[in-house]
C-alpha cells in the first residue's frame, strides 16, 4: 500500500523533531558507559527542552529584533532541511527544492544569523563566539565542497535523493573516492556540529566555548528552540551521511511496509553512528583553536584524495 509522498514528508519531519533529542541522549549515554559513569536517561534532552519552554524569557535591555528573530529562523531552517534529505523514502516532493549545495547554504544562513545574534548584545563572549565560529566555518567549506564533489562524481548528481539512488544501486561498496569522502565528511561533521575535538558542547569556560558563547544570552523558549535546533543539526548531518554513503534500507517509493522497515533500519544505523562518534570524542582531546587549521586541512586532503582517486583509479 503506497503512502502519499506528502504524508511521508510530514512523517519524516516528525521523526526529525522527535528522534533528534533522543539521538543526543543516546550519545550521552554511550559516552557515560565508556567513561564508567552512570548515565542520565535516554530522554533527558527532552526533559531539558520542556523545562526551558516553561521558563520565562529574560531579554537584555539592548537586544534588537535580530536577537529575537534568530531562534525561530534557526529552528525553521533545521525543520526544512529535514524535508529535503531522504530519511524514510527517496521520493520526496521537497527534495527538488534544494540540492546538497543549497543545503549547505541553508545551514550557512542559520549560522550567519546566530553569529549576528551573538554580536547583538555587545558582550565580549558573543563577539568571540561569532569570530571563532565564522573562522571554523570558512575553513570547513572547501573541505565540504570537495567531499560533495567526490560524491557527486560517483552519484552523477548533486541532488541528495539522486545520489542516494545511484549509490544504493552500485555494487562495489569500497570505491576509494567514497571511502575518502566519508572520512572527510566525518571530520567536517565534527567541525560543523561543534563536537570534540573542535568544540566541547558541554563546556562553559570562556576560553573553550565557541557555539555556547554565541548563545550565552538566550533563555527560556528561545534557548529551547536553539538547543533543539542544534540537536537537529547533528541528526541532520548523521542522516546526510547515511543517505550519501550507506543508503541501503531507504526505499525508493513510499510503500507502508518499506517505510516502517526504513525507520527501524534508521534507528539501528543512528545507534551505530552514536557509538562511532563517542569513540572519536573519547579518544581525542579538544584541540587548540589554531590547530583546527590542520584538522580541517586534513579533511580537505582526504576529500581531495577522494576526488583524485575517482579520476586516477576508477
Amino acid at each position, binding site marked *: 500500500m503506497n503512502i502519499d509522498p506528502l504524508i511521508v514528508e510530514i512523517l519524516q519531519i516528525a521523526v526529525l523533531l522527535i528522534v533528534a533529542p533522543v539521538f543526543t541522549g543516546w550519545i550521552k549515554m554511550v559516552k557515560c558507559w565508556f567513561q564508567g559513569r552512570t548515565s542520565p536517561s535516554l530522554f533527558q534532552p527532552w526533559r531539558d527542552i520542556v523545562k526551558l519552554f516553561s521558563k*520565562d*524569557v*529574560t*531579554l*537584555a*535591555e539592548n537586544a534588537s529584533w*535580530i536577537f529575537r528573530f534568530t531562534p*525561530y529562523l534557526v529552528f*525553521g*531552517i533545521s*525543520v*526544512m532541511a529535514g524535508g529535503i534529505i531522504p530519511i524514510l523514502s527517496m521520493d520526496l516532493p521537497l527534495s*527538488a*527544492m*534544494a*540540492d546538497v*549545495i*543549497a543545503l549547505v*547554504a*541553508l545551514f*550557512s*544562513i542559520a549560522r*550567519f544569523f546566530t553569529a*549576528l545574534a551573538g*554580536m547583538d548584545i*555587545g*558582550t*565580549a*563572549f558573543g*563577539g*568571540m563566539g*561569532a*569570530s*571563532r565560529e*565564522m*573562522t571554523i*566555518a*570558512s*575553513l*570547513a*567549506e*572547501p573541505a565540504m*565542497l*570537495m567531499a560533495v*564533489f567526490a560524491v557527486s*562524481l560517483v552519484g*552523477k*548528481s*548533486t*541532488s541528495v535523493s*539522486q545520489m542516494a539512488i545511484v549509490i544504493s544501486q552500485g555494487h562495489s561498496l569500497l570505491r576509494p573516492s567514497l571511502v575518502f569522502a566519508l572520512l572527510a565528511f566525518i571530520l567536517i561533521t565534527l567541525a560543523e556540529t561543534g563536537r570534540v575535538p573542535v568544540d566541547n558542547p558541554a563546556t562553559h569556560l*570562556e576560553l573553550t566555548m565557541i557555539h555556547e558563547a554565541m548563545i*550565552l*544570552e538566550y533563555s*527560556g523558549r528561545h534557548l529551547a528552540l536553539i538547543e533543539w535546533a542544534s540537536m537537529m543539526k547533528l541528526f541532520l548531518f548523521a542522516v546526510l551521511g547515511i543517505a550519501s554513503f550507506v543508503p541501503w534500507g531507504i526505499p525508493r517509493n513510499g510503500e507502508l511496509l518499506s517505510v516502517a522497515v526504513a525507520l527501524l533500519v534508521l534507528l539501528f544505523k543512528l545507534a551505530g553512528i552514536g557509538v562511532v562518534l563517542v569513540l572519536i570524542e573519547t579518544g581525542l582531546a579538544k584541540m587548540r583553536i*589554531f590547530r583546527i*587549521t590542520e584538522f580541517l586541512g586534513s579533511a*580537505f586532503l582526504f576529500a581531495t584524495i577522494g*576526488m583524485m582517486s575517482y*579520476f586516477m583509479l576508477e
Partner: protein
Amino acid sequence: MLLSPINVISSSFAVLLLILALTPFLRLNQRLLINVGFFLAAIASFFAAVAGFWSLVNGMTTQVILPIGLPDLPFHLRIDLLSGYFLVVVGLLAFFVSIYSIGYVKGFLGQRSVTHLVVFYVLFLAGMVLVVLADDALFFLIAWEMMAASSYFLVLYEDERVENRRAAFLYLVVAHVGAIAILLSFGVLAGLTTGFSGFQNYTFDAMRAAHLPPELATLAFLLAFFGFSAKAGVIPLHIWLPEAHPVAPSNVSALMSGVMLKTAIYGIVRVVFDLIRVFPWWWGALVLVFGLVSAVMGVLYALMQHDLKRLLAYHSVENIGIILIGIGLSMIFTSFNMSLLAALALIAGLYHTLNHAMFKGLLFMGAGSVLNATHERNMEEMGGLIRFMPWTAVLFLIGCISISALPPFNGFVSEWLTYQAFLLSPALPSPLLNLMIPLGAALLALTSALAAACFVKAFGVTFLGNHRGHHGGHIHEAGWSMRLGMLLAALACLGLGIFPTYMIGWMDPLAEKLVGGKIAASASGLGWMWLTPIAAERASYSAPLAFIGILTVVVVTYLLLHARPGAIRRAPLWNCGFEKVTSRMQYTATSFAMPLRRIFGFLFSIKEHVRQPPSASHPAFPDRIHYHLRVRDRFWTWMYQPVIDASFWLSRRIGRMQQGRIQIYLIYSFVTILVLLIFS
C-alpha cells in the same frame, strides 16, 4: 516603427543633455539643481534600462552611423543583445542611485558647491552608456576616456584632503595604463585586417569578419585582458580600487563599484566572445586563474579592513574575481566546443554581474547613509546603529545576506550556477583540467565562506552591540529618497533571487549568440519554480519554494511557540555575571578578524606590536596598553614601488635634457633641422 530601442536610448541622451543645459541656469539655487538634476538623471537611466531590456528580450540588433566623428571616420553605434544586457545593468543601478542621490547630495549643501558633482555625474553616466553602445574602436576609446575622466573629477570632489588627491591621481594613472593597453589591442585587431597599412577597419564589424593568426590573436587578447583588468580591479592591478572608492561620495562609489567595473567585463566579453571567437583553452585557464586569485585575495584583504567603504571596495575585487571565474570556465568549455556547458558558465558569470551591481550598490548606499549620519567611516567608532537607523540597518542586512551568497537572495543563485558549472567540468576531455578545476571550486567555496565572515563583522560591528565612539550630535535615520533608492535595490536583490528561471529565459538568446548554447529550456524543465540547469536529476533548486518554505516555517513556529508578552522580562545583560560592561569591552572589527589574520597572515606583511608603558600604581595591573597593527599589501612593495622608482629614475635622467639655457635649446632645434634635411 516610431518606438524602438534606439529611439528610447536617444531620448535618454536627450534628457542627459537637458540636465547639462539647465545647469547654468539652476546653479544659483543648489537645492533645486539637486532635485531637478538627479530626478532627470533617474528618468534617463530608466530609459536606458528599458531600451536595453527591450533589445535583449526581443533579440534585436540595431546599428547606427552617427554624423559626428573624425573626418572620414564616423562613429558607429550598435545596440545588440550584449549591449542590451549591460544597458540593463547600468541603467537599473543608475536609476536607484539617482533616486538615492536626491537625498544624499543634499548633505553637501552649505559645505561646498554641488554644481560640478551634478555635471560630472551626468557625464559619467553618459560615458558608461556610450561605452556599451560603441561599435568601433575610436568611439569606444573616446567614451572610455570620458568615463575615466569624469569619474576622476568625481573622486576628487572633496579635494581639500591630500589623501583624496593622491587616491585620485593613482586612479588616473592606472586607468590610463589600462587604456593604452586597450588601444594597442584594438590596434592589433584593426591592423590585422589590413596589414597595418590603412585605417578603414577600425569598426568592430571589420574586426569580426577578419581571420586572425593565432599569435597575433593571443597578443591582442593579452593586451585587452591587461587593459580591462586594470579597470576592473583584478589582482594585481587592483591597487587603485581601495584608494579611490572610499574617498568618492557614496553615490559615486556605488556607481563606480556597481557599474563602472562591469564595463570592463563587457569589454572582455565583447573582445573574446564577439570579436575573436576562436581561441585555445589556455586563455580560459588564464582568466580562471586570475579570477580565483582575485576572489581569494580580495576577500582576505577585505577581512583586514576596519574602514567600511574600503572593505566594500575590496569586496568588489572579490566579486569581479567570481565573475571572471564564470567567464573563464565558459571560455574553457567553448574552446572544447561544449556549447551547453559554456552557456551555463557564461550565464552564471553574467548573472553575477547584475547581482553584484544590485547588492554592491545597495551596500554602498547604506554606507553612505551611515556616513551621512555619523560622519565617520571607521567601523571601530560605530556600533548600535540599529536602534537609531532601523530602516538602513534592515536594507544593509539584505545587502550583506546577498553578498554572502545565502538563499533566498540573488547572490546565491549566481554562485550556485557557478558551482554547477564547476561540477560539470569532469565532462572535459583533458585529464589535467579534470584534476585542477575542482581545486578552483574549493577556492570558490573558501571565498564565499570568508565573505560571510567578513559581513558578519561589518554588520555586527557597525549596527549591533553598543556604540563605541564618542559621538556628540544625535544620529538620525536617512531621508525618504535615500531609503527609497535602497529599498528598490533590495527588492531587486530579492526578485533576482526568487525568479531565476525568468532571468535565465531572458538571458538565453544572449548566450546562444555568444557561445551557441541554450539552457533556458532545460533550466525551467520542471516548471518556472525550479531551476534545473542541464537536467532535473542532475541538480535542482527552487528559490520561490525555499523562500516561502522558510517564511512559512518561521511564521508557524512563531505562532505556535512564541512567548507571551507577559512572559518576557527585560533585564541588564547576563555576560556570565560581569555586570560592569562598557562599550569598549566589545569585540572590534580588528579583533573579530584576528583568527583569520593569524591563519592567512602569511599573504600580507603584517606587523603587530603591543606596548605596555609602566603603570604608576602597580606593575601587574596596567593603566593603558598600546596596540599597533599595520597590514600592508605585498603587491605595493613587489610590483608598484619598483615601477614607481624606475619611472622616477628614468624621468630624472631624461630631465637632464632640460638645462634651462637657451643655447642648448637652439642646438636641439638646429640638429633636428639638419637630420630632417639629410633624411628627407
